[in-house]
């Protein structure tokens, strides 16, 4: 047991460094960009312009329908054959952005469509412009509805970044692997990696429930 703990203490700084340098920034950058992509894809999907709808549907179909690992390989190892060479970081950001964006777009579309039609009619009879309706009626409600599933998309993304080692990036998992290969203590090291992910997950789910509670204040309370 003391062995275990001293192994952990020795390797922890390196694992944390990899977490802070790769896992966390990659997750944050990809998630923020994914939200932008998702909003764009949702606007296109719900627009009245057919070709835009098709582009959006095709994008979601393509990225939900293929494994993230295959997407990473195509972007990092495949594209150079077509004359497009991207760094490991750029490839990872693109792959995780587009992959998470596709899931988030589905989440947002479902949220927008779950707003009762009557409210949109009310907005029309009150003479709101299209933008005012989005800004004051659709977006605030859709975001609240989307919050829990978007939180899940983020958690999936963080865990998914453990795949970047296949394109040479040294994230927390890859660094753990490297240490395990030199000290021959795979159980201790992989357990430690798991603990790092669990710590991130715990923080994220705490934030998620705080946010949900803050945005749920107008829902009928059990007492009412």
């Amino acid at each position, binding site marked *: 047991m003391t062995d275990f703990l001293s192994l952990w203490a020795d390797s922890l700084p390196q694992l944390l460094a990899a977490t802070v340098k790769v896992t966390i920034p990659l997750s944050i950058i990809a998630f923020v960009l994914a939200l932008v992509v998702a909003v764009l894809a949702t606007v296109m999907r719900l627009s009245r312009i057919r070709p835009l709808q098709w582009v959006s549907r095709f994008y979601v179909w393509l990225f939900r329908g293929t494994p993230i690992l295959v997407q990473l390989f195509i972007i990092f190892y495949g594209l150079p054959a077509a004359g497009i060479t991207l760094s490991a970081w750029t490839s990872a950001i693109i792959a995780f952005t587009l992959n998470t964006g596709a899931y988030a777009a589905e989440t947002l579309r479902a949220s927008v469509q779950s707003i*009762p039609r*009557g*409210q949109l*009619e*009310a907005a*029309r*009879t*009150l*003479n*709101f*412009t299209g933008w*005012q309706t989005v800004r*004051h*009626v659709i977006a*605030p*409600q859709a975001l*609240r509805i989307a919050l829990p599933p978007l939180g899940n998309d983020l958690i999936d993304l963080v865990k998914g970044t453990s795949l970047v080692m296949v394109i040479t990036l040294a994230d927390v998992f890859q660094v753990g692997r490297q240490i395990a290969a030199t000290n021959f203590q795979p159980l201790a090291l992989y357990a430690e990696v798991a603990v790092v992910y669990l710590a991130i997950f715990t923080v994220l789910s705490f934030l998620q429930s705080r946010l949900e509670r803050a945005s749920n*204040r*107008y*829902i*009928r*309370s059990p007492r*009412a």
Partner: protein
Amino acid sequence: MLELNDVSKSFGGTAVLTRVSLALNDGETTVVLGPSGSGKSTLLRTMNLLEIPESGCLSINGDSVTFGGSLTRKQVSAIRRRSAMVFQGYNLFPHQSVLDNVAMPPVLNGKADRAASRARAVELLGKVGMSHRLEEYPDNLSGGQQQRVAIARALAVEPDYLLFDEPTSALDPELEAEVIRVMVDLARERRSLVVVTHNIGFARRVADRIVFLADGGIGFDGTPEDFFASESERIRRYLNVFDAV
């Protein structure tokens, strides 16, 4: 004056309104009656351009549109700001407080600044008996309370005509009575109301005018006295249904 001229509307080839013409006077309460599916909602929604007919024209106090071609956003909004709709399902915005539901629309319409609009909203909510729940969210209110807030919201945008589509059909009798009381007050103030309802008592007591829809057109247009005394087979059959209950 609200005028419909030769208005026709169909859904997927089924005619609902066929060359309907109707002229309503300001300051009157018009009750629209008719069997289910006779086109009452369609007629009312046309007045607010929630439905766009295939042909005919609509004018309200100097703004008019002709149907058949495409309408510009400007035309639509000019007509729309002349009326406001109260729905059977209330359709309040659940993420906004009662006060915000009523105070926001005039601000978004550019009609009033925030402070003036809030003051006016408080006043209107007082008028419908909702002063005590200003900061509440709609889902925490009874149906009758929600509908009264919806009426205040409709009044807030200062429409010439208030359009009610079965405003009490989803309510229990006692809650229905609170909403009807508010509507009676508005009628007494000589607001221009167009009310689709199955509440025959309201029609009898409050209407200045009854419009009865049947078979895609106007089967009767006149005073309540004449309507309830009518010998018309179709009107008798319609009224008998209510006598039976």
